[in-house]
C-alpha cells in the first residue's frame, strides 16, 4: 500500500469517524444527564430526513430552519409526553419506553409517508469532491469533519462557560444533589433534549446529503452505531462517546479496505465482534465514565 493510498484511507476514516461522533454525542448527551438510553433518537433523525427529502423544492436555508425547528420540537415533545412520566421508574423502564416510542413513530412514519423509499436531492454540490494533493475529498466529507469539530468545540464551551452548561454537568455528576442546590431538573433535561435534537438534525442532513433517500427505519442504523460507540467509550462520558465513535468509524473503514472480497459483506459482523473483544479486555469501556460504577 502506497503512502497516497494510506492518506486517502485516513481521510475517509476521519470523515466516517466524525459522522459517527455526531451520532454518538446525541445518545451520550441524554445518557450523561438522565442515565437514559434513547432509542427514539433514531426517529428524530428519520423525521429530519423526511423534512429534507420531501421539501426538496424549498430553498435550502429555509429547509434547514424547518429541519432544526421540527426535530428539536419533536425531541422536546417526546421528553414531555413519554419520558417524564417514567423518569422516576428506573433505567430499564426508560430504556424500554424509548424503545416503544421509537417503534410507534416508525410506524406512524409508514402511515403518513407510506412504506416505500422516498428520494430527493438535498444539496447536490456536496456530492462533488476536491483534490487535496494525493487525497480526493468529497465536499460532504469535508463538511462532516468541519461540522463535527465546530459542534465538539461549541459543546465543550457551552458546558464550561454557560450557567445552564454548568448545571448540566452538575446534574450529570449527581442529579439529587444538583437539585438540592437549585438546579431545575425539567429545564436541564429539556435543554439536553433540545441539544440532542440539534445533533440528530445534523446527522440527518449529512446522511441524506449522501444517500438522497429516506425510509421509515432511516435512523435505526444511526442509533445502533451510537449505542455501540457509547458503550465502547464508557457510558456516561461525552469524551468517551467521541473516542468510541472514532474507534468504530476507523475499524469500519479499515475492514472495508482490507477484508478479503468474499468476507466484505460480513464487515459489520466483524466490527461488532471487534467491539466485543475490546469489552472483554476493558469491560467498563475505553474511558471508564462516571455513570458506570455502582455506588453504594
Amino acid at each position, binding site marked *: 500500500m502506497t503512502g497516497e493510498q494510506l492518506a486517502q484511507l485516513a481521510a475517509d476514516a476521519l470523515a466516517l469517524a466524525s459522522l459517527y461522533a455526531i451520532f454518538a454525542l446525541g445518545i451520550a448527551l441524554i445518557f450523561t444527564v438522565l442515565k437514559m438510553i434513547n432509542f427514539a433518537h433514531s426517529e428524530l433523525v428519520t423525521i429530519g430526513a423526511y423534512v429534507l427529502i420531501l421539501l426538496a423544492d424549498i430553498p435550502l436555508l429555509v429547509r434547514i430552519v424547518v429541519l432544526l425547528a421540527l426535530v428539536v420540537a419533536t425531541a422536546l415533545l417526546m421528553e414531555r409526553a413519554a419520558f417524564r412520566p417514567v423518569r422516576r421508574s428506573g433505567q430499564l423502564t426508560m430504556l424500554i419506553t424509548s424503545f416503544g*416510542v421509537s417503534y410507534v413513530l416508525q410506524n406512524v412514519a409508514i402511515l403518513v409517508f407510506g412504506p416505500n423509499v422516498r428520494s430527493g436531492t438535498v444539496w447536490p454540490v456536496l456530492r462533488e469532491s476536491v483534490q487535496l494533493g494525493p487525497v480526493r475529498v468529497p465536499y460532504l466529507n469535508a463538511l462532516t469533519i468541519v461540522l463535527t469539530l465546530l459542534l465538539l468545540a461549541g459543546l465543550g464551551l457551552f458546558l464550561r462557560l454557560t450557567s445552564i452548561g454548568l448545571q448540566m454537568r452538575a446534574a450529570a455528576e449527581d442529579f439529587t444533589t444538583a437539585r438540592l442546590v437549585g438546579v431545575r431538573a425539567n429545564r436541564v433535561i429539556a435543554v439536553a433534549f433540545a441539544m440532542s435534537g440539534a445533533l440528530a438534525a445534523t446527522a440527518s442532513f449529512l446522511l441524506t446529503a449522501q444517500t438522497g433517500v429516506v425510509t421509515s*427505519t432511516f435512523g435505526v442504523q444511526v442509533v445502533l452505531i451510537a449505542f455501540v460507540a457509547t*458503550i465502547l467509550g464508557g457510558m456516561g462520558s461525552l469524551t468517551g462517546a467521541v473516542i468510541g465513535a472514532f474507534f468504530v468509524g476507523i475499524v469500519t473503514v479499515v475492514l472495508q479496505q482490507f477484508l478479503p472480497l468474499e468476507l466484505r459483506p*460480513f464487515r459489520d459482523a466483524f466490527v461488532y465482534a471487534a467491539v466485543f473483544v475490546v469489552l472483554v479486555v476493558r469491560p467498563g469501556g475505553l474511558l471508564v465514565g462516571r455513570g458506570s460504577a455502582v455506588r453504594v
Partner: protein
Amino acid sequence: MTMARDPARDRLLERGFTPLALCVLVVALVLGVLAVADSSLERLVLIALVDMIAVIGIYLFTGMTGTFSFGHLGFMAIGAYSTAILTVPPATKRVLFTAMPGWLVEIHLPFLPAVLVGGLLAAIAALLLSVPMARMQQLSAGLATLAVLIAVYVVVGNWSAVTNGTKGITAIPTGTTPIVLLVAVVVVIVAAWLFQTSALGLRIRATREDEVAARAVGIRVGRERGIALVVSALVTGVAGGLYAQLQGSLSPGAFYLAGTFLLISMLVVGGFTTLTGAVLGAVALTALRRILEFVETGVAIGPLTMPHLPGLTEIGTGIALIVVLALRPLGLTGGRELSWAAVRRVWSRDGSSTPAEDPDGGTTDGRPVAMGRVDSPRADRSLPRVD
C-alpha cells in the same frame, strides 16, 4: 368462601400451583379457541404458542437477571436456521443450496432432534457471549446484546451458501401440530418454573434484586447470569426451531427489530419479572393485535367507517407498551406470580379484591415499584425455601 388452612397442603400447592395453573390456563384457552377456530385463527394460535415459548426464553434471562436483552432474536434465528437446514431433505437441499458444503447437505434429522440441536447451537453461542457479558455493567451488557442481533442478522443475510441469504429458505417440512406445540409449551413452563425455584434460580434472581448485596453473600453474579443466558438461549433457540417447522419458510427479516420489539413488548406488558407475566403477556398482546389487525383493514362500526390504516397494529402495540410502563412498570401481573396464596386471598374476600389492591403486594407506600429495583415481590416470599 373461606377455606380451612392445612399447612402441609398449602406448601404443596404453593410449590406446584403456578406452573400447573399456567399450563391448565394455556391448554384450556388453546383447545377452546381451536374448537371454534377457522384456519387463519388456528394459525394465529399456533404462532402465539411459539411466541410464548420465545418470550419465556427471554424471561429466563431478562426476567431473572434484570438485564434487558435485545439479542434474543439472534438466538431464535440460530435455532430456526439450524432446524431448517437439518430437516430439509438432502435431495431438496441439492437444488436449493448449490454452494452448501457436502457434509451439511447430507445431514438429515427428524423433527425433534433437529429442534433440540438448534436449541443447543443457540446455547453454545450464548455461552461464548456470556464471557464478555459477565464482566460488563448491566445496562451496557443489555445494549451489547444489540450487537449480537445485528451480527446474526448480517451473517444470516449474507452467508448464502448455508442460509440462502436474503432469499431465505423455503420447503422446510412442517412438523408441528397443535398437540406438539402444546406439549412443548407445557414442558417449557414446568422446566422454567423448576429452574427459577431451584437454589441456582434463587441466586440468579437475587442478582436482579440487589447486585451488591448478592455479591456480598457470595453469589458469583457474572457466572450465575451467564448460566441464565445459556438456559434462556436454549429455550429461545428451541422456539426458533419450532417457528421454522411451523412456518415452513424463513427469511432474515423475521429475526430482526420488529420481532425483537414484539417479544419484548409481550414480556414487559405481562410483567417481565415473573413467569406468569411472560405467559399472560404473550396471550394479551396476541389478542390485542388480533383486534387491531381487524380494525386496521377498515371496518364499519354502526354509521362510522374506519379508514384503512396500515401500521395501526404496530402503533397500538407500541402505545400499549408505553402506557403499561407509565402506569404499571412491573406489567399487568404487577411483579407477582399466579400463586396459590394469591388465589386463596382473592377467594377469601369473595373475589372483591384484585391483586393491585392487595396490601401485601408492591411497595409499602403504594407507589409503583421501579424496574430494576424490585422490592421483594410477594411471589418470592411464597417460594419454597432454599434450605
